[in-house]
């Protein structure tokens, strides 16, 4: 937490992030149970939507929540919301357990990493603003397009499958996904 009052007030963690911080700092079991009750059923539901069967999804969700407990101190509320951080854990567990692949990730402490000017802690305000702006950009994607993005990228569905499920011509699905991606990219580029 920055000692600069302005930084601290701008970077107020949301309620779920506070629970995560309580787990990280105080090993607070009550806070963990509340996180479990909120995220456990959602993580499981997400995994099931990706085709993981019920009992496997339950086991995997438990692994996700154990990782949340063990790695809570790696959570940085200035960089991501609690739900985003838990999403990345869920994603990686699924790749590991279901796809049986490694997940190549960069190492933020790698001396070979080209730093971002905003990785500088004295610029925490702007990192926080960036996060809020991301949120806004995402909320601005029209629901119809957001749905296609979800199906295509987060549910691993091919364009063919999406076309069948939504009863749309394949060409329409392709052009709408292209449109949605372009809109998201433009909103993100406007943030710079």
């Amino acid at each position, binding site marked *: 937490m920055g000692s600069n009052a302005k930084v601290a007030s701008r970077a107020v963690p949301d309620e779920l992030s506070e629970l995560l911080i309580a787990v990280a700092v105080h090993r607070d079991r009550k806070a963990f149970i509340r996180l*479990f*009750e909120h995220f456990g059923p959602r993580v499981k539901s997400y995994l099931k939507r990706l085709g993981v069967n019920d009992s496997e999804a339950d086991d995997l969700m*438990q692994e996700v929540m154990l990782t949340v407990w063990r*790695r809570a101190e790696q959570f940085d509320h200035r*960089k991501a919301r609690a739900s985003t951080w838990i999403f990345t854990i869920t994603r*990686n567990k699924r790749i590991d357990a279901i796809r049986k692949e490694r997940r190549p990730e960069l190492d933020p402490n790698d001396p070979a990493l080209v730093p*971002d000017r905003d990785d500088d802690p004295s610029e925490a305000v702007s990192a926080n603003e960036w996060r809020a702006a991301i*949120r806004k950009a995402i909320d601005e994607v029209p629901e119809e397009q957001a749905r296609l993005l979800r199906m295509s990228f987060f549910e691993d569905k091919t364009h063919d499958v999406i076309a069948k499920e939504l009863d749309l011509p394949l060409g329409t699905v392709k052009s709408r996904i292209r449109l949605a991606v372009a809109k998201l990219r433009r909103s993100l580029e406007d943030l710079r």
Partner: protein
Amino acid sequence: MPHHHPSEEMLLGYAAGSTSEPLSLLIATHLALCPECRRKVAAYEALGGKELEVEAPAMLSSDSLVSVLDRLDTAEEPAMAPPRPSAEGDLRLPRPLRDYVAGSLDSLDWHQRGGIAEASLLTERSDFKTRLMRIRPKTAIPEHSHHGSEYTLVLTGGFSDHTGHFLRGDVAIADPAVQHRPIADAGEDCVCLAVTDAPLRFTGTIARLLSPLLQR
């Protein structure tokens, strides 16, 4: 800062967890060199976070919570990242690529042909061909087209083809229809990571004769 980036679809797929390991390796290594794409991936991960938030809660099995609470203080998390110190090895190869080559290019099994040396990675996969290439200055890579797309990340030196000039951190994407003939820059060796999602097809006359050899 790189000028040629992975496509938006690749970054979204990487954030969502739907890109394959070879392509994820190339994207993650680019991310180490590209703050701009790191920000985009962070944004796309936030999209995933939103997915979780709006997810309708599923019914858990009755003993899930107890089972997790019982294990909170027992088993330790197996380390996901290798325990190797982050500063060790050849820093021209950012992580995660550095971990895939055990820290250095010398650990690989290189095959030299003319001015081009190649070493295969992730050889257990038949759907992708993943290679490191070391190309001597001013060497032309035989003219070729592909059945699938070809993705090339530059790590040292550079090369040019008809689509542009590629330097450290840049990603060149060649689509199946395009024949191209990259030439390495003068100066130092050009080392790059190349991922092809189907075997290469060489198109020049001599290359066609060599093709069976080049594909091993």
